[in-house]
């Protein structure tokens, strides 16, 4: 055996440049990473440069002659009531606003996290008191606590920071407590402690990395909230005082003059909005950066080009929503009153709403406004619709962009009050309008002609496929209850299509108990779910036919199907606790199906429920029916599940691992109940289990599944005697039997089940089969009869090669 290269032979670089670390690559793996870096860069640069670039004079100097002006070339966003430049003041307020928010958040984070961590390590009684205290403070409106604290410490910027810092700490304490308490109970922390690692090391390498994600996101959220809260206090006049000003204070000034110069309030408001957005993106990107599953992304994802990744629908949406937000903030700015000698108040919002005062504007602008109005609506609509349309999304987005560009250039020309540009701007706006119109028509046409839209959500219906290849005489059971031909479940995943259930044919006779075994992932559960039409999204189920009592359920209408399956088929699942609704009484859950399908009610229904409870040996049924699932024990719950399945006297029960979650003693009891039901009521049972012992105990026939196919169909009585499929043989050998020799190693099956998206060419079991021969790699063995009641999918058994027969 050639030695694999040892770990120590591999030279991993000790130092990775920051931008090549897995963290940073994951950080940038979504557009939010770029947006966060970009916006944060701008904010920081502004905070650093604004006080240097702008002189005090520029910001504070009054000029009453030019007060409350609209946007102009001198004052891009206009002037305030004292004639000061709005943009400059907004920029100048950046460092103070950020500083206040960061220190308030920092304080809340330090106090909160410390309090939370300490609480988690307090002894029982004290901890409860501390928790209660945190809860109480949490229930109290934070801003009110802050206001009250301001009353105590006095109205000032420092006071506001202190108040917010304290008022916000309980929610952070609660988060920290939950995390600290939760993480301590985890298995990997326990194993680190057992391994004797020092507390410092456990905290640094086990606890912090695992809670960092949440802590960072929570901290960033807290920072955004602190910014809002400090601004709120300033807005109320309880924060920044004197000649100092932050964004909140600017807004206060602005709100008073909202009617005259809306930009006065809107500019600082936008600044707050952008900062909030930055923090949000930053949190999202950091969380991605800290997620180890993104460190090891599969090649297929990473190989997608930069462009492909960044022009995914998410990017469009994120930038779309950012644009929407900006539009929301800036819309009212675009007042064309720069054109209007009378300075009429005509705002962007008014344009949109069709309320612009047209008589007072020039004729040329009227046309422009009309275009603009329609164009702007269409651009907005397109932007929104393009999220949902499938194929023309990108086209629509580009067209919408062009529209927006046209409109934008028009606005710019107005802003600059440069009438020479007006003609060109109008032309582009008009072009944008026509393009938008075409795009809308295309979009509507596409929505109406899109077939996939009408078939959406049909995944849990079985699609009938052509019957040409069906071998009818394949199985001839005496009284067939269920006949399935060509059952296939497909999932079209990003990484490729897989078929976890692949062309299955099976028959169940009336009154049989048939077992299905196989390793996990072999498709047992999906087969059951497909028959019950419960396959999860986005699975697609198809079959030539599925006949239950002779009726093909693939060709039934939804209404027929509901009634037919509702009364003929029942399912029992693995975990009885989670399969019963915790909020409903057992009685309600038992009776709802017959109430719907058989229109039973009142006494009859109650008596039926009592009967069924008796069938599964639940005593004191009257009382039990009034109880909730949490009042039942595990075994009792599974009995109740079975009783529920029996309510409509179905002809078929599909039980998917009904005993796996239970103890052996309870398992034996449940098996007995199932056997009894089968014998007394003649119900056919399809029992899925990974435990071949359970199957042998109760079933008459067993289907063995491997990689989505049935590889053997055999009577249980023959299972331990005749030649079997090599996989079945290996499965049985791997179970430590009760009389096995304890000194011999167990027979294990080498390797692993194959990946469904990378199945071997011939027999799927070939890589693990000890009898494998040349033909196995070429062809897939079909499921063929070797005896009347025995089907095997293996060349060794159906067409043995010359040398193999010798054995």
């Amino acid at each position: 055996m050639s030695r694999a290269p040892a770990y120590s032979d591999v030279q991993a670089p000790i130092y990775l440049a920051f931008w090549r670390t897995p963290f940073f690559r994951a950080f940038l793996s979504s557009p939010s990473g770029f947006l966060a870096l970009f916006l944060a860069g701008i904010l920081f640069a502004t905070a650093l440069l604004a006080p240097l670039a702008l002189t005090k004079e520029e910001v504070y100097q009054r000029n009453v002659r030019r007060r409350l002006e609209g946007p102009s070339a001198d004052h891009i966003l206009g002037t305030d009531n004292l004639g000061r430049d709005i943009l400059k003041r907004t920029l100048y307020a950046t460092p103070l606003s950020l500083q206040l928010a960061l220190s308030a958040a920092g304080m809340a984070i330090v106090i909160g996290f410390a309090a939370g961590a300490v609480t988690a390590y307090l002894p029982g009684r004290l901890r409860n008191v501390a928790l209660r205290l945190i809860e109480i403070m949490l229930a109290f409106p934070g801003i009110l606590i802050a206001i009250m604290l301001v009353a105590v410490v006095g109205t000032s910027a420092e006071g506001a920071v202190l108040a917010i810092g304290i008022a916000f700490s309980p929610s952070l304490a609660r988060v920290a407590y939950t995390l600290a308490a939760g993480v301590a109970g985890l298995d990997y922390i326990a194993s680190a402690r057992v391994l004797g690692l020092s507390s410092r090391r456990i905290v640094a390498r086990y606890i912090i990395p695992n809670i960092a994600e949440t802590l960072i996101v929570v901290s960033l959220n807290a920072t955004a909230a602190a910014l809002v809260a400090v601004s709120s206090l300033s807005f109320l006049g309880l924060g920044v005082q004197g000649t100092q000003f932050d964004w909140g204070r600017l807004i206060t000034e602005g709100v008073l003059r909202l009617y005259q110069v809306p930009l006065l309030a809107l500019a600082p408001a936008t600044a707050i909005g952008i900062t909030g957005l930055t923090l949000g993106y930053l949190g999202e990107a950091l969380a991605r950066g800290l997620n180890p599953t993104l460190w090891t992304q599969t090649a297929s994802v990473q190989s997608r080009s930069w462009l492909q990744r960044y022009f995914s629908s998410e990017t469009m949406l994120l930038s779309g929503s950012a644009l929407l937000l900006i539009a929301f903030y800036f819309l009212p700015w675009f007042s064309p009153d720069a054109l209007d000698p009378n300075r009429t108040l005509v705002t962007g919002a008014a344009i949109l709403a069709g309320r612009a005062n047209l008589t007072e504007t020039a004729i040329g602008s009227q046309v422009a406004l009309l275009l603009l109005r329609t164009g702007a609506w269409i651009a907005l609509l397109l932007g929104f619709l393009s999220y949902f349309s499938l194929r023309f999304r990108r086209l629509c987005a580009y067209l919408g962009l062009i529209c927006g560009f046209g409109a934008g250039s028009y606005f710019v020309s107005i802003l600059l009050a440069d009438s020479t540009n007006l003609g060109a701007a109008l032309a582009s706006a008009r072009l944008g309008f026509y393009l938008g119109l075409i795009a809308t028509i295309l979009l509507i046409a596409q929505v109406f002609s899109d077939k996939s839209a009408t078939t959406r959500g049909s995944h849990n219906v079985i699609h009938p496929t052509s019957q040409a290849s069906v071998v009818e005489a394949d199985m001839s059971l005496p009284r067939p209850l269920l006949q399935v031909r060509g059952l296939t479940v497909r999932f079209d995943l990003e990484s490729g299509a897989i078929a976890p259930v692949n062309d299955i044919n099976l028959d169940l006779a009336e009154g049989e108990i048939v077992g299905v075994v196989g390793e996990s992932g072999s498709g047992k559960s999906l087969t059951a779910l497909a028959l019950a039409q419960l396959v999860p999204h986005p699975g697609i189920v198809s079959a030539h036919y599925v006949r239950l009592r002779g009726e093909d359920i693939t060709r039934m209408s939804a209404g027929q199907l509901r009634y037919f399956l509702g009364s003929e088929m029942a399912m029992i699942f693995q975990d009885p606790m989670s399969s019963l609704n915790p909020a409903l009484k057992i009685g309600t859950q038992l009776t709802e199906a017959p109430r719907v399908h058989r229109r039973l009610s009142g006494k009859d229904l109650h008596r039926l429920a009592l009967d069924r409870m008796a069938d599964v040996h639940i005593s004191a049924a009257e009382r039990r029916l009034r109880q909730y699932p949490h009042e039942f024990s595990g075994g009792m719950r599974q009995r109740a599940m079975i009783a529920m399945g029996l309510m409509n006297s179905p002809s078929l029960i599909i039980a998917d691992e009904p005993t796996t979650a239970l103890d052996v003693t309870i398992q034996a009891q449940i098996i007995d109940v199932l056997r009894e039901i089968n014998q007394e009521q003649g119900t056919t049972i399809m029992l899925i289990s990974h435990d071949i012992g359970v199957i042998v105990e109760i079933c008459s026939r067993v289907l063995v599944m491997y990689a989505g196919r049935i590889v053997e169909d055999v009577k249980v009585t023959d299972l331990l005697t005749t030649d079997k499929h090599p996989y079945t043989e290996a499965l049985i050998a791997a179970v430590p039997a009760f009389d096995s020799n304890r000194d011999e190693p167990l027979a294990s099956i080498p390797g692993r089940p194959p990946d469904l998206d990378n199945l071997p060419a011939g027999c799927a079991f070939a890589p693990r089969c000890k009898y494998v021969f040349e033909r196995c790699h070429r062809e897939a063995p079909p499921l063929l009869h070797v005896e009347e009641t025995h089907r095997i999918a293996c060349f060794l058994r159906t067409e043995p090669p010359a040398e193999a027969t010798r054995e």
Partner: protein
Amino acid sequence: MTSSQALQRHSADSGTLARLTSRLGPWPRFLLKRAASLFVVLAMLLALTFLLIHLAPGDPAVRKAGIDASAEQIEFERKALGLDQPLPIQFIRYVQGVARLDFGTSFITKQSVTEILQQRFPRTFQLAGTGLLIVMTVSVPLGILVGALTREGRNRRLEVAFMSLTSTSSALPEFLTATFLAFIFAVTLNWLPVGTTQKSTAIILPAISVSLRPVASLARVVRLETLNVLAQDYIRTARSKRLPTYVIFTRHLLPNVLTAALTIGGLVFAGLLGGTVIVENVFAWPGLGQRVVDAVFNLDYPVIQGIVLYFGVIVVLINTAVDILLALVDPRTLVLSE
């Protein structure tokens, strides 16, 4: 998350009390425990508001008498306020006053605080109540709807649109929303009135401003919880029984989702009350929020004390109501509280 939260909520006051009440049925036991914790919380609230005056800088007596008052006047006010008494006696007086619904009189307007509360509270209640109504009627159906449409990774685009929309609107501070709404609907379009309480439509803008943020955050929680519930095995069981969709949604999904909505409902209401303080100031809505800001400006301690206490009591009562409602909706809560 619901059950673990409920567990946390209730594990706090088990202990001696649990032993004392272990012979009662689950409901009396639960109610008794709630009542006990209510009592403790109210006592803490009283202590906190009482301390306010003593922690505050400056002498309340000087405040009350006015800056240019004489030493005798100040001494007189000190006596009138009871500040010459030892702290415990002052506290007992305070509690007695509160029990008589006497919170003192405003330093500035000399109006009795009780009167101020009577005048102002209905306005705040109207605003917060309408807000809560909007929050519950919009966010729960919205969250469930979007949750149902985006289950199992369906409709990725709708999901992203919903997430961006709710995250941006839950980051919008109330005073911004209020300002914008006022600007667009009152100033520009002149559709809705502001700065008045005379017209019945006047509440629309303040109520929307105050509820936008809670709507967004609650809708997110409801959507997540809907996804969570829809992925539960018991929903699969219900589907395997071929129940009509509306039954699955109303009987199996709704109660479980409501539990989550209710659990944070108390927090949402607290947030709403906080929002009213801001929004009242934007819209000149004559409620308690507007009054408390005035009071803080003027360091009018009795008014601050009264209003904060009042808000506190309401929040605590609402939370208790939520707890009881939760126990009614979800029978497990009763057991977990033991």
